[in-house]
């Protein structure tokens, strides 16, 4: 178990993966440096399959940098990342990304309507790509229009928005379009980088409910960076606390939030109380 070997004396609670959960990702000694600054410093971490894992920590802790490594938007300078028992670099990168989808902090709308945005995920591949994992594969013969409707339903997007220009949507609607677009490739993993940071609290709550339901119904692995600790507490199964590029606490969300005794980590976890 990778986490058991976390070599920091100041670490808070460090739990192995609960029994019954297997690792979707395993990070071993992952180090990331940007512009001469160490962003991640020997991260050892297991991310469970089919659950929601929240990455929390103060600004600059390396949360987004870690997330970007999981579908190879960036590569680490050293260390290994294993995805479903194979080194992440052994997958063709385009197939990996179709299986490990990414939702960005600021929603990005492509030119055109909501339908155009969603169908872009199907047509831009140039050819139908075979998923590198065998879960949630689209049904045979399912046409683009049906997949658009299905993805919109999964992301709880109003079907009447289908022909609306993407730029005319609200922030919450745009983020749902981005989630729906990410779901178009039937991914196994959904990486979400502070998806609610620009949304009203009510909209953010509804989006988190959607995320929770997606994880449960689609058996989707969700890794979510959030600066809202209440969101992590309510939505995630597992919580990882990062500080200065190191994992300082990790385990079941309830245990991390209730049983952490390290004063510094405790103070951070209590900031929203």
């Amino acid at each position: 178990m990778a986490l058991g070997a976390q070599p920091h004396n100041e670490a808070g609670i460090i739990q192995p993966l609960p029994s019954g959960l297997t690792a979707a990702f395993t990070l071993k000694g992952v180090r990331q440096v940007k512009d001469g600054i160490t962003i991640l410093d020997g991260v050892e971490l297991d991310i469970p399959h089919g659950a929601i894992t929240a990455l929390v920590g103060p600004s600059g802790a390396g949360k987004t940098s870690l997330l970007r490594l999981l579908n190879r938007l960036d590569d680490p300078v050293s260390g290994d990342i294993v995805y479903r028992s194979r080194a992440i670099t052994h997958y063709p990168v385009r197939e990996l990304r179709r299986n490990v989808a990414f939702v960005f902090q600021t929603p990005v709308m492509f030119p055109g309507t909501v339908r155009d945005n969603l169908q872009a995920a199907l047509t831009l591949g140039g050819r139908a790509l075979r998923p590198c994992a065998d879960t949630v594969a689209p049904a045979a013969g399912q046409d683009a229009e049906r997949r658009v409707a299905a993805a919109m339903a999964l992301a709880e997007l109003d079907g009447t928005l289908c022909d609306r220009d993407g730029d005319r949507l609200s922030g919450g609607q745009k983020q749902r379009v981005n989630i729906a677009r990410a779901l178009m490739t039937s991914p196994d993993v959904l990486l979400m980088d502070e998806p609610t940071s620009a949304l009203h609290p009510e909209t953010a709550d509804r989006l988190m409910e959607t995320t929770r339901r997606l994880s449960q119904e689609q058996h989707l692995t969700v890794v979510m960076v959030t600066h809202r600790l209440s969101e992590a507490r309510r939505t995630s199964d597992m919580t990882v606390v990062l500080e200065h590029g190191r994992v300082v606490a990790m385990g079941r969300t309830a245990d991390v939030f209730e049983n952490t005794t390290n004063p510094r980590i405790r103070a951070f976890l209590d900031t929203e109380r």
Partner: protein
Amino acid sequence: MPPFVESSAMASRSILEVSWFDLAWAGGLMLIAVGISHWQKLGLAQRLVIGALRTVVQLMLVGYVLVSLFALDRWYLVGVALLGMLLVATKAAVNRQFRASRTLLMITGVAMLLASGFTLLYISTLVVRVTPWYNPQYLIPLFGMIVGSAMNAAAIAAERLASEMAARAAEIEAYLALGTTAQQASQHPVRQALRAALMPTVNGLMVVGIVTLPGMMTGQILAGASPLIAIRYQIVVAFMQAAAVAITTTIVTLWYRRTFFTAALQLKVPTNAAAA
């Protein structure tokens, strides 16, 4: 020799020669520009004077070089001259870039070599039918006009692509994250760069003869050629410049784009997303 070249002799008139004394009078016009700079405190007077002196010296040198090349009439000397023009133009195009690099220098140089070389070959063999094939009287001015257009287009294309890639970094990463190729992810920046680089040529084709009288055509008319001959040459020049610009722009844009991505389809342009 093509028919319209022959007929130019029939239509030629006597040339009014500009003497050195006449040039001194022309220099008086520069004094107006210097005077305005001084009056409005623009701080450009010295640079205007230096610029005027450089214009005189550089053009005199070019004049003597061309006279020597025409007199010597050697294919290898013409080749050296064309290569020199290409190298200077390449350097000038890259020096304007914010992201100047040796890679961009190579890309621009190769693009301009291929585009200008092909266009000159096409024009000199199929259109103007230059004899002998290296005749410097034709090749050097034609190549100068081709390379000049290609240089501007290459500079605009590279600059626009770099700025669009930076401005659209989030969009490009969103495409990449869906599993697209680098070509698909950067389709909009590439389109913008191509359009920006081609637009001056398109606009030029639209207004030529109406808003502007091109320098080459004006020069021929001043030198005594019939306007009907001059316009035919000018049409050839317009078409060859359009071709050179299109080829250069395409090569620079598509090749330069590759430098913005790693082998693992990662965007090299810095993004804010990675900061957290």
